[in-house]
């Protein structure tokens, strides 16, 4: 089952009236969508508001989503349109110097082009989260670290990872889970301390 199919299962649940399924989609895509919108809306507080608006618009439009394209492509398109409309409503021109569309956003990797201004609090928290994740990854045993890296950064399937690491798929599944759980164990206390500003 590909990622697109997981999203489709969640979309169909929302279309059957399950609002909770939409929360899972928000948890999954909020940072990707926020990152995309921040290319258009430079103020971080505004970008967060626009990201929320984009999700609400997507929720309202979901009954009409037919699955012809991937959910995230459709969502990113809504995000771009919402950001552009926000800028036009505030009499500001959307950036046109770097043509950009939803499909490109999937492969956009040049962080240097991102214009991000964050509040000191958010910036500190972001840094702490990233530091904890990176430090936890480094502390992992080699086999767990490799499995998680191949999955999350290289995007390999379990079958491909099993081939690379020369082990059964069940072992890959177990290693990736144990790696995630080890990192999560270190993250939870940090996330608990910022309950008012959930992560």
């Amino acid at each position: 089952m590909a990622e697109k199919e997981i999203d489709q299962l969640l979309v169909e649940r929302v279309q059957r009236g399950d609002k909770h399924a939409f929360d899972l989609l928000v948890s999954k895509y909020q940072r990707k969508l926020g990152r995309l919108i921040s290319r258009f809306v430079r103020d971080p507080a505004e970008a967060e508001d626009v990201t929320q608006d984009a999700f609400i618009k997507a929720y309202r439009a979901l009954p009409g989503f037919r699955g012809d394209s991937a959910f995230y492509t459709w969502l990113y398109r809504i995000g771009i349109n919402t950001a552009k409309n926000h800028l036009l409503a505030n009499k500001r021109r959307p950036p046109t110097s770097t043509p950009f569309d939803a499909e490109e956003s999937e492969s956009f990797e040049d962080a240097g082009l991102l214009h991000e201004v964050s509040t000191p609090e958010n910036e500190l928290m972001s840094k702490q989260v990233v530091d904890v994740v990176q430090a936890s990854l480094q502390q992992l045993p080699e086999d767990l670290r490799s499995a998680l890296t191949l999955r999350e950064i290289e995007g390999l399937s379990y079958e491909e990872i099993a081939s690379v690491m020369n082990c059964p798929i069940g072992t890959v599944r177990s290693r990736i889970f144990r790696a995630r759980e080890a990192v999560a164990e270190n993250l939870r206390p940090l996330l608990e301390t910022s309950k008012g500003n959930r992560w």
Partner: protein
Amino acid sequence: MRQEISALMDGELFDDEAEALFDGVRRDQDAHQDWAIYHLIGDALRQPEHIHCDLSARVSERMQDEPVVMAPRARASTQRLRNIALSAAASLVAVAVVSWMSLQISPEVAPQLAMKQPALSPASARIQPKSNDYLMAHHEFSPSSEMNGGASYIRTVSYYPEEK
């Protein structure tokens, strides 16, 4: 449940397992949190420059005011079922047509044809074009006259090119 969530977000569960797990996550707030943290870990590894605070609580709060959306049943599965039904119906119609056509030839004719055709073939090879008038005049006595419809004329028609 955490290990299943980990496998689910990597696309390594079957559809029915995923559906069952989503039902479980719906009932278990901790499981929802695990889903969120595992995705946060992935995002922190892939795009460490853009990790911001969690918007899902605020979006969820705003969605309290939104009406529940409902859409027609999933098209994909409906379409799949319709295709299967149409294929099955087409196969049944094809079988029925072939059966009906085979019944148009009386059951006793087929064995006779099977026995007589090999004997006719060498004879027809020796027939000269000048014999056509004779054959036309006496074709009702030909064994092939037992055949239904226009099949009895097939042999006569096949001789015209040789006559020229």
